[in-house]
């Protein structure tokens, strides 16, 4: 009897460890997470407009149907990424996600404070390799550090009424997301 009780207690304790390990592992082993769903339908280091969600099909669950959405799936191993998103009439935002869907940074048109949201996305190592004076003169140049080499940039433009959706989509179509091909500016 004692032995059975001991077995159950040991089983439950071990179960607790299994639970913790599986919760921590789940984001890494999930096959239907947002990145895996978007990977086949998006281009790497380029913007891809996502189809509008409708009842029969949606690229992701719980998408806001009032927004036009474009995604840039990035890989920084080839160099930093330069992102420009023109601001639409109503509301525009840019959100950054890691490979495992951690939203590490998001900015909207008002906090960007201009007609065009311009950002440089790089890994911490690439940021550290920037010439120092470049960093100082870069006050008007927003640099985002990506926690990992791969991830998602999600650009959204609001259509306050259904009739304004084409305008929202058009403003996202003018956005660009590409690897900076020119060599890093050198020290003067």
């Amino acid at each position, binding site marked *: 009897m004692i032995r059975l009780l001991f077995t159950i207690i040991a089983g439950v*304790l071990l179960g607790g460890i299994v*639970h913790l390990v599986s*919760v921590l592992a789940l984001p890494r082993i999930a096959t239907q*997470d947002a990145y895996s769903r978007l990977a086949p339908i998006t281009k790497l280091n380029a913007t891809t407009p996502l189809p509008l969600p409708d009842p029969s099909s949606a690229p992701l669950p719980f998408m806001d149907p009032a927004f036009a959405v474009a995604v840039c799936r990035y890989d920084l191993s080839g160099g930093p990424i330069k992102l420009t998103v023109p601001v639409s009439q109503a509301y525009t935002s840019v959100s950054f996600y890691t490979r495992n*869907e*951690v939203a590490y940074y998001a*900015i909207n048109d008002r906090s960007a404070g201009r007609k065009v949201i311009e950002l440089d996305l790089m890994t911490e190592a690439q940021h550290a390799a920037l010439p120092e004076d470049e960093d100082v003169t870069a006050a008007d140049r927003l640099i985002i550090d990506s926690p990992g080499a791969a991830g998602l940039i999600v650009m959204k433009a609001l259509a*306050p009424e259904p009739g304004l959706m084409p305008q929202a989509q058009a403003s996202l179509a003018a956005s660009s997301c590409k690897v900076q091909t020119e060599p890093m500016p050198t020290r003067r």
Partner: protein
Amino acid sequence: MRLIFVTLLALILATVVGLGATWMTATRGTDLGTLTIGAWTARPKTGTADVDPYSRASIARSGELPVGTGDGVAFSATRDDRKQPLDGRCDVVVSGITPAARFWTLTLYDSRGRLVANSLQRYGFTSQEIIRGADGSFEVRVAARSRSGNWLPTGGIERYALVLRLYDTPVGVATRTQRDAPMPSVTTVGCP
């Protein structure tokens, strides 16, 4: 022989308990870092880099992308103010005011996060589309059959979720109470 049996029992128990608990928390979510105001719950921390492991697991499982904190915050409701589950065959009224935000959207989803088909192709409202009273408050009727005013069709499905997303808003990780964020009430007014 007995030792093998006992060890096997402990291991099976561990697997069932451990994976069962993980499945429960990943599908139903936990109360960790939730902000509940009336019928609405939000997890503002899911939009930041210090999201808790349970939220990360449930995000990975469902396949959604959380709203980033610099963008906005999402409140969802699956029950009304009296804790009754939202039923698509009943009339539910969402009324009142929303917290300060540049824009907000109210959207209806089925339990798996898909939009619900209806003849109007109306899946939600934005703050600009909505018809308001003179005092700025609004009333949305969530019902299967057409209603006057702001009608949000349910398609007659049994269970649904309402998601109110606030964009460019001070509501977030620091918000605690109704006074910081006055959320609209959710009331079931009649069932056929």
